[in-house]
């Protein structure tokens, strides 16, 4: 039985453990704020949201549309989805609570625990079937999932299982077959159904039971009794294993159902929250590559919206055909926020979610990577510039055509001339291999030289600053300017009128 709510081919979604640079990605793009809103106070939902945002599996346009459909179903019937989710949670919690598992040692106990768990889960399954029948689902994902349950576990089968479970208690002793093993111990013990074989019945009829040799363990012989029960345990191991595997499979189904539904329930939570805050959302249009395509209107930095509780200033972008975006301009002008908004939107689109924009169209990225300037220096032995480049080195290992790299004030930990040369080599080379780069930078020499070359694949953007020094937090196409306005910031903070700013 497969859940298959996240992949069109019915494959299970298995969250990967945090990758080495996931913590950096979470921090740089403020993903934790988004995951918190999706979790809405539920730790399981929170984790599932984080996993979905960080997922590194291939998500092509077809997969994205498949998830968008399920999500639209969820938005249309939020109560049904939340109800199904709570059934899955119920079943999953039964497993966690039960004595079922690898820790119970004896096969007899395991058999019994598996049987009990199976009976409880079969009840939940019946509920699931009933609740699902009521609702009209239009998405392929949900329809297929419910269909599977119905065909695999129709009522007659469940009754059949219940009958066998009773026999498995072995109340009238157990008949075993065995051979001699390497130490003359019994091996290949197998449970036999007594009175089933023809030869056996003939023997009984003809009274040929003379070659039976019997002994009895003394009532006070505890060691003997224990050894005997161990022997019996070994013999019913295969039977116990089969029951345990069945129980594991059914719990696994609910565990998977819970995990996959958690993504949609989390998305519902986020959707509610954004709508209440007046932040526009839309279904992004995933464009197949490889040509660069990225155009959008009214994009907002979700993290900032959620943290401030206000619909912050939206931005537009028209970067079709561009693989290198250079963002320059005033400090505190919204460059980093713009960079984050781009990164988060690409990640959410890739996950199959809506995005915080009025219109959004892009090629889904094959991996999003961030390289942000770090304030602290982790070690003393390695120089800061070296540390920056070692992080980049690790990123390059994972880059493929179609990847997105977001650089924020990188290469600043050395003098400008040398930093510019290194920056130039890196950010002009990656796009040649189909990698999209957005680079927020103060390296003026670098930006100016590149601008003067009028490269077709490069788009220059600038954080807007009005003549009076006011920042609009809009990022618009524009050539790099001579200064970074650091004096402005200085004076803003220190509160003295400027006397040399130009």
């Amino acid at each position: 039985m497969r859940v298959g709510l996240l992949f069109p081919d019915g494959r299970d979604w298995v969250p990967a453990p945090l990758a080495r640079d996931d913590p950096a990605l979470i921090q740089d793009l403020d993903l934790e704020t988004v995951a918190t809103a999706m979790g809405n106070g539920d730790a399981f939902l929170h984790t599932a949201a984080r996993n979905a945002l960080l997922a590194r599996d291939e998500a092509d346009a077809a997969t994205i549309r498949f998830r968008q459909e399920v999500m639209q179903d969820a938005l249309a019937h939020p109560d049904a989805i939340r109800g199904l989710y709570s059934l899955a949670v119920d079943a999953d919690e039964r497993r966690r609570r039960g004595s079922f598992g690898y820790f119970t040692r004896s096969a007899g106990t395991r058999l019994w625990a598996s049987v009990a768990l199976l009976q409880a889960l079969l009840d939940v399954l019946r509920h699931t079937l009933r609740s699902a029948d009521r609702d009209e689902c239009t998405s392929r994902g949900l329809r297929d999932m419910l269909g599977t349950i119905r065909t695999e576990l129709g009522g007659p089968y469940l009754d059949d299982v219940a009958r066998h479970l009773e026999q498995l208690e072995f109340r009238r002793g157990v008949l075993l077959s065995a051979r001699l093993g390497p130490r003359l111990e019994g091996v290949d013990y197998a449970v036999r159904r007594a009175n089933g074989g023809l030869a056996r019945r003939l023997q009984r009829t003809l009274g040929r039971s003379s070659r039976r040799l019997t002994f009895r363990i003394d009532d006070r012989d505890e060691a003997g009794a224990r050894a005997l029960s161990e022997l019996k345990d070994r013999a019913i191991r295969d039977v116990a294993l089969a029951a345990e595997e069945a129980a594991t499979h059914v719990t696994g189904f609910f565990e998977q159902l819970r995990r996959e539904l958690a993504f949609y329930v989390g998305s519902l939570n986020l959707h509610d929250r954004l709508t209440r805050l007046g932040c526009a959302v839309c279904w992004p249009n995933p464009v197949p590559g490889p040509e660069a395509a990225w155009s959008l209107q009214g994009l907002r930095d979700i993290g900032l919206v959620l943290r401030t509780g206000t619909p912050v200033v939206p931005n537009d972008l028209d970067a079709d055909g561009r693989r290198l975006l250079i963002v320059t301009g005033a400090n505190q002008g919204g460059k980093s926020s713009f960079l984050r908004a781009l990164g988060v939107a690409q990640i959410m689109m890739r996950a199959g979610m809506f995005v915080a924009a009025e219109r959004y169209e892009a090629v889904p990225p094959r991996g999003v990577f961030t390289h942000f300037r770090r304030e602290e220096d982790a070690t003393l032995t390695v120089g800061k510039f070296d540390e920056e480049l070692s992080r980049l080195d690790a990123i390059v290992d994972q880059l493929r055509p179609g990847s997105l790299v977001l650089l924020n004030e990188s290469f600043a930990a050395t003098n400008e001339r040398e930093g510019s040369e290194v920056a130039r080599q890196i950010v002009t080379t990656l796009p040649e291999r189909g990698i999209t780069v957005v680079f927020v930078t103060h390296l003026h020499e670098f930006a100016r030289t590149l601008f003067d070359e009028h490269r077709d694949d490069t788009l220059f953007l600038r954080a807007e600053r009005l003549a009076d020094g006011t920042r609009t937090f809009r990022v618009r196409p524009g050539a790099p300017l001579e200064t970074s306005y650091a004096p402005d910031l200085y004076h803003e903070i220190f509160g003295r009128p400027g006397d040399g700013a130009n």
Partner: protein
Amino acid sequence: MRSLTPPPSSPDIDSSILDPDPAPRPALPEAPECFADLRLDTIFARVTSSVWSEYGLERFYHDAPTDLRVVAFRQAVMRETERADLQPALLRFAERMRAVRRELDSQARSAHPLEAARFFLRAAQAYVDAVSALHGVLSLAELTSEGLRRWRDALARCVGSTGFAALAADCATTADGLARVSYHVRIDGLRVTVMPADDSPDYAAEVEHLFARFRGERMQGAAPQSAHAGHLDPVEAQILTLVARLHPAPFGALVAFCAAHAEFQDARVTRFDAELPYYLAFSEALAPLRRAGMTFAYPAVSATDKTLDLRGAFDLALAWELHALSRPIVDADVSLRDAERLMVVSGPNSGGKTTFARMIGQVHYLARLGFPVPGRSARCPVSDRILTHFERLDDLREGRGKLQDDLLRMHRILDRATPASLVILNEIFASTTVVDALYLARRILAELSARDLLAVCVTFLEELSTFDEKTVSFVAGVDRADPTIRTYRIERRPADGRAHALAIAAKRRVTREWLLRRLDA
């Protein structure tokens, strides 16, 4: 039936694969003094770990020959034991012989006579397998080493004997008879009934069929609980007694077997089995390093020529540690020509100087054991002694008392050093003043130089690097491109080093050239 342990090897056995002229050796020689300084203790602890721990190989490894003839004899055997067509067979032989000992041990500890008899039978089976299989491989092989050729002759005599043929035949028929026994058991409460097998249907299969649709992947952690690690429990023992009564013929054969073959091991075989791991253990310890691309070379050894020429040599103890961390090891070339004898190693701290000095000592010791040494190629003399003086880090004393101890140790070394010795001094007199240290070190170097022996001197005193015409200077390097980085590379040269951004970018492989290469790969 009495319990058997392998008989001790006796002096009249005709073949040893360790010595051309076998002589009694000390029972358990202590480790040479240089062992800890050169980390040979670490090396041989690893070599004798795992399955090789039961052989007491230290008695061989602590006693490296100084006679060129013995060294050459062992080197020839070692080369052959490493041959791809022979080594697997030799390893299997050793493994089967270990199985023989395990089974005999189980037999000795078994309380149930039938079970004990079966352990004995299994020991004999393993022995027959070990000897026959090895004979099969060796009799067809082209052998060149004196040691293995002599052993092959001994083995042929052993296999050709009538006793061995009878043993092999009896093993097979007895075991076969027991393997055919099958039966049924009914357990009802505390009552156990044993009866002949019949055709009652397999209930487990029926249950498995019922749950078949849930069987995706096999469960983990539900591996069969193998109840007996060792012996029969009381219930099994009682069942076995009844099974034997149901099937008297195969059990009768087992009793006869034990009576007929009480002493089945040949002393020639047990001696070979005791000596072979000397070679196999070392070769197996090198295997993971070889797979990781490190090379080992059989050194050209000489009793008279003092030429030292190592290419791509490295510290074996460190190699395992770095391999475990998946980090590459830095190797070094050492080439002493003509009258050059004294290697003075200077350079930055933690730059690999000590490792370099250890490596030279290890090469000399391993060469004497007849083993391949770390590196692409090697030439070295057979030393009579390896004398080391390493600064003791745990010695917190300073001043006169410590200097006095240092000098006493140096004196002992000089007393024992001959022209054929190797002396390794590591940061001696480091805790005294530079003037004192220079004065003392020059005296010591003059003594060493006068003996014309090979010596390595690791020091912070660069002045020593031009001590005399026998002196060669080695320097621990720093990265030319990025002087914040130590290369751990020791090079033969006098000393220098500087950094800029592009060099670091190149180091991190993010220049344009590197990026194109990486992204197109």
